[in-house]
Structure formats: C-alpha cells, structure tokens
C-alpha cells in the first residue's frame, strides 16, 4: 500500500506541473479515509508556504543587486558566485542576532505584533489563481476577502509602534497607518472598475474573462483598454503605498524617523516584519496581475505549451522589477505630499475611471468599422482630460521648468 501511495504522489506532482485538472484526486483516493482531509489541506498550503518565501529570498538579492547597478555600484558579490548565497547569510544573521526588548515595552503586544502581521499576509495568497487549476480556494467573494485581510494588517503596525513605548515609534506608526488607510481607497476603487466590467468578485472568473485574443494577436487583458491602463497604473501606485515602499517609504526609511514602528525590533522579529512586507508586496502584485495583466494567460496565441504558473510568476517578477526600478529612481515623498496625492488626485481620478469603464461597456454596441477606435478615444478622453486638468490645477503656482545640470570642472 505504501508503494501505491508513493506512486500516486509522484503522478500527482506530474499532473500539477503539467496543468492537468484535479491533480489531487487520485492521490487522495489512495490514502486511508481518516487523514484525507488534512492531507488535502496541507497539499494546498505547503507549496505557498515554501514557494513564496523562496521567491522572497530571491527578491531580496535581486533588489540589492538591481539597486546597486542603478546607483552605479555592484551589489553584494562576496558570499557566493554573484552573491547568490547572500539571502542565506542574511537569514543566518537575523536568526542569530540578540533579541532586545526595551525594559518599558508592553511585552505581550511587542511579541505578538510581528506574529499577527505575518498571518493575514500569508492568508492573502489563498485566493490568487497561480495557474489554470492552481487556486487554493475559489471564493465567491474573493476580492472582498483579499481587501479585508489587507485592511487588518494596519492594526498590527499600530501594535508594533505603540508597544515599543518610544515617541518615534509611535509617530512612525501613526504616519504609516494614515498612509495605508489613505491609499486603500484608490486601490479598491481602481479594482472596482475591473469588477464592474467582469461582473463577479471571484478572481477565477476575472482571469477567465481575460481569455482570448482580439484581431488574433492582441490578448484580451484588461490593461489593453483605456480604463484598464489607467486603473493598472493607479493600482500599482496604490500598491507601492500599501507596501510602504519607495517613494512612499516615509514610515521606514533610515534617514527618516529612524525606522518608524520597527525601531525597537531586532533579530528574528525584524526578519518577520521584513518577510511580511515582501510577502505583502507579492500578494498585491499577484492581485494586480490577476486583475489587469491577464492572470496566468499567455500573451501570444502560440505559446500555450508553457505551463500557466510560469506565466504568472513571470508577470509577478515583472511587476516586482518595476517596483525595484521605481525605488532606485524616484525621490521620497514628504508625508503631506503623500496624503495630498492620495486624497486630492488619486481618489477623484479613480472615481472618473469608473465612469470611463462604464462608457466603454455601454458603447460595446458600436460595432461599425472603426468603432473600436472611437470607443478607445471616448474612454481615453473621459479619463485623460480630468487627469491633465487636475494635475495642472494641483501643481499650483510652482513653475516646473526644464531640468538643467551643472557639472564641476
């Protein structure tokens, strides 16, 4: 019987890697009845809990090398060939560092904050469709679950900042929470445009909507429509702000308020915060890929032989590289500039994006020749004109002139 179980295990791995539906079925039938439920759950959870932290380790290395090259220096290159073993060295350092807790700190909450932060961050991966048959739970209200879980991470940042009994931690935590709450609204509203057109809150339905090709070679992804493009850009900006990454990293940049709510954390707890930040970034990028970039679909009609989860991971790493590029290029925003940007610019634009998406949807009956061009222009003007007007209006009387360079000679 053990031989049966091992054989059907390897058959299941083969089926899952080749995108076949219902890979788990035969393996579960070969097991005794009592442990079937637990093994089924473990089979959904273990790939996420192993795969995404490995991707996290790879991304920390990619980020340091990438930022180094942008800043005209090499990144870490001592530990392995090209610095490949740097994440291992970082992990060993974090684990063996002394865990210092301030004497006046509220010990229970100080201990619980990183633990309670990692839990919702990992829960968020439960609804993201990684491949054609690879979504852990196909919830009817998938996106609502994702945003609810994202909103509950804000309270843990407050716990971290307040329990340290440190003025700077508290101030940093307050700023971080204000930033996260402000950018939640453009995040949710820009995804509502997609939900409106697709007509379902389930992420699997959203990916299935983006199937197929127009004119034979343009994929039917949401990003290739005017409201989808605007929505994708707003979603990615809000995702940067939600993950506290540059240029929105006032809460945790080193030259700012020390490290904000992370000041009094060292060793493994700091590693947990770090892990939670990157996993949050992956989760929200995964949602962006699902909503706007077509999920696990291939970009060209002939490339269907590549497994779908490779397309998903490729698009995810594309967005992560974009985030790293933005971090290396743009200067940091001040906290009042950040909040003004959210409330006065992103919020009205995301509302107008809804109108643009509605115009696109209701003009779908215009199927005369050149109709699609007219629809494109209509939607683009609905979102583009307020964008230009609001941008100029909010710049006030600051004259933005052409950049000139002065070199020492």
């Amino acid at each position, binding site marked *: 019987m053990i031989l049966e179980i091992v054989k059907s295990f390897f058959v299941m791995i083969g089926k899952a890697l080749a995108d076949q539906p219902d890979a788990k079925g035969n393996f579960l039938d070969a097991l005794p009845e009592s442990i079937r439920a637990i093994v089924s759950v473990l089979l959904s959870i273990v790939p996420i809990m192993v795969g995404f932290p490995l991707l996290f380790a790879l991304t920390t290395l990619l980020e340091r090398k990438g930022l180094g090259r942008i800043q005209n220096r090499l990144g870490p290159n001592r530990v392995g060939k090209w610095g490949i073993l740097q994440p291992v060295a970082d992990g060993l350092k974090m684990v063996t560092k002394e865990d210092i807790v301030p004497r006046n700190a509220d010990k229970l*909450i100080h201990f619980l904050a990183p633990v309670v932060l990692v839990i919702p961050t990992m829960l968020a991966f439960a609804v993201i469709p990684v491949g054609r048959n690879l979504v852990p739970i196909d*919830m*009817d*209200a998938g996106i*609502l*679950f994702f*945003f*609810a*879980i994202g*909103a*509950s991470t*804000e*309270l843990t940042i*407050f*716990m971290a900042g*307040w329990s340290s009994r440190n003025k700077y931690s*508290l101030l940093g935590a*307050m700023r971080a*929470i204000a930033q996260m*709450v402000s950018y*939640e609204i453009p995040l949710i509203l820009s995804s509502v445009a997609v939900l409106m057109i697709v*007509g*379902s*809150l*389930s992420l699997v339905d959203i990916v299935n909507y983006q199937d197929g090709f127009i004119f034979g070679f343009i994929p039917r992804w949401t990003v290739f429509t005017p409201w989808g493009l605007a929505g994708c850009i707003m979603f990615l900006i809000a995702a940067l702000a939600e993950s506290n990454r540059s240029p929105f990293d006032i809460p945790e940049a080193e030259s700012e308020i020390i490290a904000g709510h992370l000041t009094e954390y060292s060793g493994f707890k700091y590693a947990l915060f770090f892990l939670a930040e990157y996993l949050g970034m992956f989760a929200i990028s995964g949602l962006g890929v699902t909503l706007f970039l077509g999920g696990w679909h291939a970009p060209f009609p002939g490339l269907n032989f590549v497994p779908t989860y490779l397309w998903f991971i490729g698009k995810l790493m594309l967005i992560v590289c974009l985030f790293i590029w933005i971090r290396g290029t743009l200067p940091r925003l001040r906290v009042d500039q950040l909040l003004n940007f959210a409330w006065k610019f992103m919020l009205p634009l995301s509302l107008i994006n809804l109108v643009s998406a509605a115009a696109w949807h209701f003009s779908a009956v215009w199927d005369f020749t050149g109709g699609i061009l007219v629809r494109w222009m209509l939607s683009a003007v609905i979102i583009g004109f307020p964008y230009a007007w609001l941008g100029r209006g909010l710049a006030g009387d600051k004259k933005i002139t052409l950049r000139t360079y002065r070199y020492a000679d």
Partner: protein
Amino acid sequence: MPIAFAIIAALTVVSAVAAMSLRNLVHCALCLAVAFAGLAALYLQLGAPFAGWAQVLVYIGAVAILIVFAILLTRSDAPSQPTFSRSWIVGVAVALVVFVILARAISSSSPVHNISEAPERPEPTIKAIGNQLMTRYILPLEAMGLLLTAATIGAVIIAMREPKPADAERKQNPS
C-alpha cells in the same frame, strides 16, 4: 458542529469582557478588535461570507483604528485615574437584569425552539446580493451614500481645529 461554535463563542465573550474591563485603554481597543474577529468568524459559520468579510474590512480595518487614534489623541497625563465610575455596580446590575429577561424570553419561546436546525439551502451568491441591492434596496443604498458623505464631512468639521482670533490677526498682519 457545536465544538467550533463553542470555541468561537468563548473567544468572543472573553474578549468582549476584557474590552470592557481592562485598565489600559489600548488593550481594551485591541481586545475589541479580537471580539470583532470572533463575530466575523460566527457570520462565516452561519453562511454569510459577504457580511463576514465586510465586518472584518469595516470594523477591524476602520472602526478599531479610529478608536485607537481617538485614544491616542485624548490621552491625559494623570495615570492614576480610577477606571470605573462611582456607581459602576448599578450599571452592571442593570445589564444583568436585562440579560436575565432576554434569556428567559429566548428559552421560553416556542417558535425559537421549534427551529432546531438550519434548512439546507445554497448560499446566496454575490450576484444575487448585488441584484437585490440594485433593485429592491436601491433607495436605502442611495440614502446610505448620502449618510456616509454627511458623516465624513461632519466628522472632519467637528474635529477640525478652530482658528483662534489671535491666529486670524497674525495672518492679517504678517509683520
């Protein structure tokens, strides 16, 4: 499955009692967030996922944070304040009487005891809920939008710092 219900109910009741009786205000707010999470779990168990996740999003993600911010903005530096009012025993006694009355009403109600198990029925889909919101409940939906707008504007105006006359004068003559 009563065991799941028992665990979630115990967690909710314990955190509700803690939220009302702890000394430290921030601990009270965090226990309240745990109570909200317990209630969301109960909604999920009762087959209402939309209400459950909306509860997490609105209550834990917004109301709990509001309460925490208000606690931090209204701190006074006198730590040794007795936390319960002088006549706290009267409040607890009134609540106990209300609970006894409600419990008696529930236990002795025959329609409630006739419903001993939940009917087998499919969960309402989000599409059905959306349909109902847009056809039958459209008026309450629009009224809710107006209410939330009025509440937002009102809260901002109430909590805004009033410009004092000295500030207004200083703005007039910046010399």
